[in-house]
């Protein structure tokens, strides 16, 4: 049998071209950063086990898992609501991979490893909200969508999980977007088209 090894690579490997895109001159209105090499586990409570799941999550992460559309920051993971009695565990560094979480939630939840099934795009910049308004019907005004708010919604007919992370050091809002890997390139092009008039700064990173 031939010896080979799998090389994982981003679904945006070809579509993402780091650097400037769209309007030039002045500061880019939208910054797009693809976050690579993260661990993402979907946790769904088994029937009648929602309370057990909540207790197990609290014990492992030290914070209560979200039971409404919110993203909760634990010490080394982000817990993101994805539907009734279910949430994502987003982390990096291997501490919260499916093997470890499988033991934590063995009695209360069913798990599914989504680490290579989603693409994570971080969107910020002075024109981030204006650009997202072209793609999303969610009200992203700071009063309606503060830091830690999340939404399971659709953009460009594609299901996404959207949440507001901590603001950048310059005070600008950060919107994080999880999209199915096979839809990522399509949505990426829609985002670039929507953002082009404001000027786009594109990069990828491994920092959550």
């Amino acid at each position: 049998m031939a010896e080979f090894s799998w090389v994982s690579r981003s679904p945006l490997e070809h579509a993402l071209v780091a650097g400037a895109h769209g309007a030039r001159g002045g500061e880019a209105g939208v910054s797009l950063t693809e976050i690579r090499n993260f661990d993402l586990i979907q946790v769904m409570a088994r029937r009648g086990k929602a309370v057990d799941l909540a207790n197990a999550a609290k014990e492992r992460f030290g914070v209560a898992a979200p039971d409404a559309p919110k993203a909760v920051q634990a010490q080394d993971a982000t817990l993101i609501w994805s539907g009734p009695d279910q949430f994502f565990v987003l982390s990096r560094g291997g501490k919260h991979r499916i093997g470890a979480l499988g033991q934590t939630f063995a009695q209360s939840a069913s798990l599914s490893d989504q680490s290579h099934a989603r693409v994570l795009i971080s969107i910020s910049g002075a024109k981030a909200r204006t650009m997202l308004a072209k793609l999303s019907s969610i009200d992203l005004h700071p009063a309606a969508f503060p830091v830690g708010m999340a939404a399971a919604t659709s953009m460009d007919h594609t299901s996404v999980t959207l949440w507001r992370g901590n603001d950048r050091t310059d005070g600008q809002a950060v919107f994080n977007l999880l999209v199915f890997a096979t839809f990522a390139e399509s949505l990426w092009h829609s985002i670039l088209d929507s953002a082009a008039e404001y000027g786009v700064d594109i990069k990828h990173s491994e920092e959550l």
Partner: protein
Amino acid sequence: MRIVCPFCGERELGEFTYLGDAKPVRPAAGASEDEVFDYVYLRDNVAGDTSEYWYHGGGCRAWLKVTRNTLTHEISAVEPAAGVGARQAAR
């Protein structure tokens, strides 16, 4: 038209898929042919409030039971369908 999902809040129609009448109940195994025929094929064409299933596939992927007026499209109630989530919405 917008539907207020009990889990996500108010969302546009494009995030939802319509299934149909939520009233028919599957007859017991020994039911007569007429009862099964009624369950499978016959639907009331109501002018007024109807109860129907909608799926929030573009959002939280929950099944919802929506009370909608077919004359005005006014939605008077939305609740999670039986069995949605490991517990029903608390709100």
